[in-house]
């Protein structure tokens, strides 16, 4: 949870995906590594199997949100960061208890009148096979993933317009 002047105060980081599908579970591994990283100390670090509507409340209470997820639309091993905009809530996912990042942001705006900047750190997976460990190749990329999150936290406020021009990477899991 947030405390005092810690660098991560007010920051919510959500790593999500299926921990039993190798690289799809990278969000979980990223959160474990971020928990030990002083550059994000004080941040609220969550891991989830999938995004759910309840996270709209967490979004609304945060000053900055970072989502970490495997993205099949990104080249394997690449780390892509994008600033997310709200989307029209997608009924197909929302009413079935999981939700896409844009809809989640839209819910936070509509229900709680709060719109924190939301970044998606999308990472290209090498494997989505069964297994509770990420692939060795992705293991080597993990420091970049952690650095990307730490950089967003360090540069918050001025990072938004810069990162907007980064390669886009859909954040859906």
């Amino acid at each position, binding site marked *: 949870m947030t405390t005092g002047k810690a660098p991560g105060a007010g920051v919510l980081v959500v790593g999500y995906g299926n921990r039993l599908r190798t690289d799809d579970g990278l969000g979980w591994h990223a959160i474990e590594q971020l928990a030990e990283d002083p550059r994000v100390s004080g941040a609220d670090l969550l891991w989830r*199997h999938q995004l759910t509507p309840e996270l709209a409340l967490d979004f609304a209470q945060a000053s900055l949100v970072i989502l970490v997820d495997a993205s099949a639309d990104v080249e394997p091993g690449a780390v892509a960061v994008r600033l997310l905009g709200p989307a029209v809530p997608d009924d197909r996912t929302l009413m079935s208890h999981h939700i896409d990042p844009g809809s989640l942001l839209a*819910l936070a705006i509509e229900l709680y009148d709060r719109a924190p900047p939301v970044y998606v750190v999308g990472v290209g997976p090498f494997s989505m096979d069964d297994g509770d460990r990420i692939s060795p190749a992705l293991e080597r990329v993990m420091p970049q993933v952690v650095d990307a999150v730490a950089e967003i936290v360090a540069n918050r406020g001025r990072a938004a317009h810069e990162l907007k021009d980064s390669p886009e990477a859909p954040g859906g899991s």
Partner: protein
Amino acid sequence: MANRSKVGDGNGRAAGLDGPRPAADALAAQPDADATRAAKARRPAMRKITIDHVSRIEGHATISIMLDDAGQVTDTQFHVTQIRGFEKFTEGRPYYEMPSITSRICGICPVSHLLASSKACDDIMAVRIPETAAKLRELLHCAQFVQSHALSFFYLSAPDLLLGMDSDPAKRNVAGLLAEHPDALRDGIALRKFGQQLIERLARERVHPSWTVPGGVNAPLDPRAREKTLAELPAAIAIVKRTIALWKKTVDSFPNEIESFSNVPTMYCGLVGPDGSLRLYDGNLRFIGPDGAIVADQVKPNDYATYIGEATLSDSYLKAPYYRPVGYPDGVYRVGPLARLNVADRCGTPEADKELAEYRERLGRIVQSGFHYHYARLIEALYALERMQELLDDPAILGTKVRAHAGVNNLQGIGIIEAPRGTLIHHYKVDDNGAMTWANLIVATGHNNLAIGRGILQVAKRFVDGDKIQEGALNRIESVIRCYDPCLSCSTHALGQMALQVQLLGPDGTVMDELAR
């Protein structure tokens, strides 16, 4: 529903389970995409309406509606078209792995499987778990009830219930709720978050937690978690009370649905305490008849198979449990919120009992209409919250003796709890080394299978007319299923979201219309 069963062998094991299952033509092609395409190609031209919309139920199902020459509904069939086979592939695993393995059956109610499985393992170990552990497990279970009932009411059913069954399908969704009932949506999100957070606070993980183990739990309650939860409880209780008040003002606007949504006389089953009060975590089984008369009471978990038989259906992977003394198919009984409130003499907590009294005053002592599952679900959510308060107020909840240790002392074990959707039975057999040799899981949606089938027939007769399915009729057919909040993933121990397909069949079996979600 047509009689289409094979009856089990009397030991909770259904006939045909161990070998390839027979399947009706419609289902035989399901696993084989090419065969399915070929079968469709042979059919006469048909209208097919595809609604690009994922249904709000867990699992995959197909409904067939049969018509006579006059175009009137004669029968319906509810096919559940998936299987995973947890009972089979767990054979050979150590019994103490079962809680972790079986909780993977479902991402919605993993806690229920975890608890029923842990109780079955307790039985194998022949231990009585420490008092604190039992209270902590019940606390976890109450949190599971709150989050699951919130999910069912607010996320899955609210678009129909608060916007109307015949409201514009384009607006009968979250956008519609956002526009017309944002407060209810906020309440739903807050309530589910409260339940999920408590699960996480207790068990570290909100989905597939590993805190509950054979013999108890693996860590005592952190006093700070107790304080936090006690501080948050009043707001959660206020949400449920507000929602019950809203529902009491709304429910009477659904006279047709109340009359025709699974409004069929059946038996009911649920756990009760020694005084007949509602029990969710512990207790013995009680069965009542359609008139409310108790036909079996204080049935010990290890005697369940004397009262519950299981039939397998030729066209569905979902088995059909029945009340054995009556036999199949007439021994239809229901479980879940509606059944539990019919079965129990009282809830046992003050606010829930007050609501239960009004519920019974409005609807009668025995409530038959499946539509009232929603109302019953809200009262149970209130009970679960009050029960949390009682458990947290008990100093024993902070005890530090939370786990009993033992080896294999029984070669079989049975664990029964009331999951949010109804009675959940885990029955295991092991060898001397504790390796699983046999498992039988009877899940809430399975218990309700025959009743769901009768409900579908009833609503189809009421709302399907002629050779075409109207969207409103499709929604009502789905809604009658949704009343039971079925988890087809659990009931077949299968994975995925429900894609519902409804087929209208003429007297010669010709597909006259088809709608798919």
